[in-house]
């Protein structure tokens, strides 16, 4: 596809966000408001970043914000919390989509709001799969999820850094993809997913990277009784993906980390979005907007749609 892509934000936007993060971090750590800040630092290759945890105000200068900041840092508050989470309040850099994960985790008793300091980033978007590390953020390199983002200005953060410049209209790639999926007959859809899932190598990267897969022992790892076949064979793969889809239904924040981590390019986020759509139609529920007492699948309401019970 030969097309002229426009750059979405000039370097000054990213520089401003980076500076604001550093200033906030210095303040928080030197005043002792938080014990640590979870953020991004430059990776070894130019243009890449890696998640990092800063506990020393002098290191605040290590923090960056760039179009490569794809990781959902909420992950480090749960799964890895035993190793990395120091005692006391923690600050975290959160894009709008990451905020959804935080809201979900608050509702699931995994976090306490008073133990969190959220540095929200008003986000233009991050780069998608296939974009080279040296490339700029353009209408061509922007991640698919960011094209249809509805949460650019994060709500409910303790502080918001950056200001989103005016952005062009994006064609809704994800919505079109979902529409194509929904247009299929059940048999076609089954074949579609069977085809994809049969390629899964059960590396569990999708689970490891998901902020909601914080279980001490995942159902998949149970062996007494064994819940799922663990070797990558079609039946077990199908079972795993059904488990994953169901366990994340009504919870998934839409960060697309699972899809990014998957070495086999399985369109996991398409399934996530399909589930989200189902919950929206059935229960008028959208995950992660505010922390909720009960999720759609753990609550019974008289007016709940029952038409699927046949």
């Amino acid at each position, binding site marked *: 596809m030969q097309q002229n892509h426009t750059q979405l934000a000039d370097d000054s936007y990213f520089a401003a966000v980076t500076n604001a993060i550093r200033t906030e971090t210095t303040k928080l750590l030197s005043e002792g408001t938080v014990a640590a800040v979870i953020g991004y630092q430059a990776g070894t290759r130019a243009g890449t970043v890696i998640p990092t945890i800063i506990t020393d105000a002098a290191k605040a200068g290590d923090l960056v914000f760039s179009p490569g900041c794809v990781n959902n840092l909420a992950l480090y508050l749960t799964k890895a919390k035993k190793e990395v989470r120091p005692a006391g309040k923690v600050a975290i850099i959160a894009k709008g989509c990451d905020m959804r994960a935080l809201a979900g985790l608050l509702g*699931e*008793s*995994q976090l306490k709001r008073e133990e969190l300091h959220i540095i929200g980033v008003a986000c233009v978007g991050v780069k998608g799969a296939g974009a080279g590390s040296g490339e700029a953020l353009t209408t061509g390199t922007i991640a698919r999820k960011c094209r249809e983002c509805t949460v650019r200005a994060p709500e409910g953060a303790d502080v918001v850094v950056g200001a989103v410049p005016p952005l062009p209209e994006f064609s809704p790639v994800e919505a079109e993809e979902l529409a194509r999926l929904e247009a299929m007959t059940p048999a076609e859809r089954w074949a579609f997913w069977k085809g994809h899932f049969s390629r899964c190598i059960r590396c569990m990267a999708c689970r490891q990277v998901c902020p909601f897969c*914080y*279980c*001490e*022992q*995942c*159902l998949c790892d*149970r062996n*007494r*009784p*064994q*819940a799922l076949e663990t070797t990558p064979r079609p039946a077990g793969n199908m079972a795993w993906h059904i488990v994953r889809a169901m*366990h994340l239904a009504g919870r998934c924040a839409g960060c697309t980390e699972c899809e990014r981590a998957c070495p086999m390019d399985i369109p996991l986020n398409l399934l996530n979005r399909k589930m989200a759509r189902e919950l929206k139609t059935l229960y008028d529920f959208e995950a992660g907007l505010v922390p909720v*007492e*009960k*999720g759609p699948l*753990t*609550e019974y309401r008289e007016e709940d749609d029952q038409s699927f019970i046949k």
Partner: protein
Amino acid sequence: MSRIGVFVCHCGENISRTVDVERVAAYAAQLPGVAYATDYKYMCSDPGQNLLKKAVAEHQLTGIVVAACSPRMHEKTFRKAAQAAGLNPFMCDMANIREHCSWVHENRDEATAKASDIVRLMVERVKRGKVLEPITVPVTKRSLVIGGGIAGIQAALDIADAGHQVVLVEREPSIGGHMAQLSETFPTLDCSQCIMTPKMVDAANHPNITLYSWSEIESIDGYIGNFSVTIRRKARSVDEDKCTGCGVCMAKCPQKKIPNVFDRNLGLRTAIYVPFPQAVPNTPVIDREHCLKFKTGKCGLCAKACGPQAIDFEQQDQLVTEPVGAIVVATGFDLYSIDRKPEGSSIEGYGEFGYGTIPDVIDGLTFERLASASGPTGGKILRPSDGKEPKQVVFIQCVGSRAREKGISYCSKICCMYTAKHTMLYHHKVHDGRAYVFYMDARTPGKCYDEFWRRAVEEEEAVYIRGMVSRLYQRGDKVVVMGSDTLVGVQVEIEADLVVLATAVQAQPNADSLAQKLGISYDKYNFYSEAHAKLRPVECATAGIYLAGACQGPKDIPDTVSQASAAAAKVMTLFAKDQLEREPIVARVNERNCVGCFACRKVCPYGAIEEKEIRDRQGNLIRTVAHVNPGVCGGCGTCQATCPSKSVELDGYTDEQIVAMIEAL
């Protein structure tokens, strides 16, 4: 190594007719882990049970499968037998080869094969069974009764007479409920007040009864034997301890024109009031909406007049908490409001009958107030519009009831009888008057009930017209009733002076929200559900909560009182023990795996899941995990199905057992 014994029952011929029981036993005998298998004509009989006991000893059995009827039938029987033989009772399970097999199949070979499958599954389950010990919980021997109608009063008196403390909570200023509003009662026509008032006074004076009137249930925690109830005592603005009930305040109150709801708005009352002269307690309440002191800050005449200085304009709602072991729900009923479609309700109104627009169309309860000697007319039947004595009265039965198209399909049960009563009361008071009744059927089962109805028709000159009314309208000072007489097959038109509608009995408008606080279930009409329609008609499915009176469904006074005494008997049975023993089929959390997401707590219908903090030796909090309170858990297994990481399981139904059963299939 398991040594399971399998006992295949013929159930006379109930099972053996379709299932080859000998073949099933022979099949079971060769299953891995089965040490002994046999068949017998009646396993539940004494010799059958002895066979089981003997086999346990002879074959050193570690578990038992009885292949017979439903566990609902005989699980207890065989568990007891197993226990007598020295086994843990929960190591004995039943394979249902009757209801699930012989009764529903015809082909003998196929039924036998299926019975063998069922047995194999249960063997796998028992092999993985765990020794379980019964759970004991202490019992607080105090009872809460919610609602002070005849049901609540009767239940409270019975429990109190048995020597237990009772907390009686009534939402209105006085106890008495609907019965206090009635004039005379079928089938004997004795005066309702005369039989009710002494009971009300007994309840209030009983040393074992604490009466909270003008109070409501705020919240309920806990479980059978151990509830904790928070009660909101609404501000009365009158100190109950100081007030002597002299009534001077009411005489002084300048706000005298407030419609009295107790009199169905026919009579008037003051802003400081008791709903009726015989009220118990006889302590007035200030209706803050109408009181001038509350509205304008000026007045306070009542406070000046009150000798003992009982009036307290500053009084606030108070919350009191009471520990109780059992709860009787006796919140009664309400009458269907027929003039309009209640908001949000699936029930259609009866606007066509003119209720609410034509003043001389009233409901049955209003007629009771007109006929009552202590009512607004002193017992004279005078119609609301102009106070004249009506000479033609039309009664219409089944208004709202049995009208599926309007949203209520049930029969309100009391209307046939009270309408017959109304015609008699009318006949006794207005000798030259005529009573017409439009009815669909006359339903009069009950002791002396049909006789009573016949008396209305045959001796008291009521004209019964079988048919429904299609329309009512005002013409001059008459209400024209158009209907059909389906027996004769003609249209009828009656010029009535008064029309009385026998409107459907409905649940209290807030019945569902109280049910949700209590954790009890209710039907689609918001009547509370009993645990079993025939065999457990006074218990709720929620342990420790019992039902009395019209809150469970339409009822007359004899049925209400019977059920109230039955509920009291259930409470006394519960209180006869110091400790409750219950089945250990409860959920258990694997604290190593639980991540404290509390999805289980969100779905648990019994509120059994608590937070438990896991701390290290220094006392630092490491994790918060779920903990199941075994006294509360109902053993439903919902948590087990919900927990993503399967960190909570039901004892006796562990994943290991269930998966083994599925795999054996």
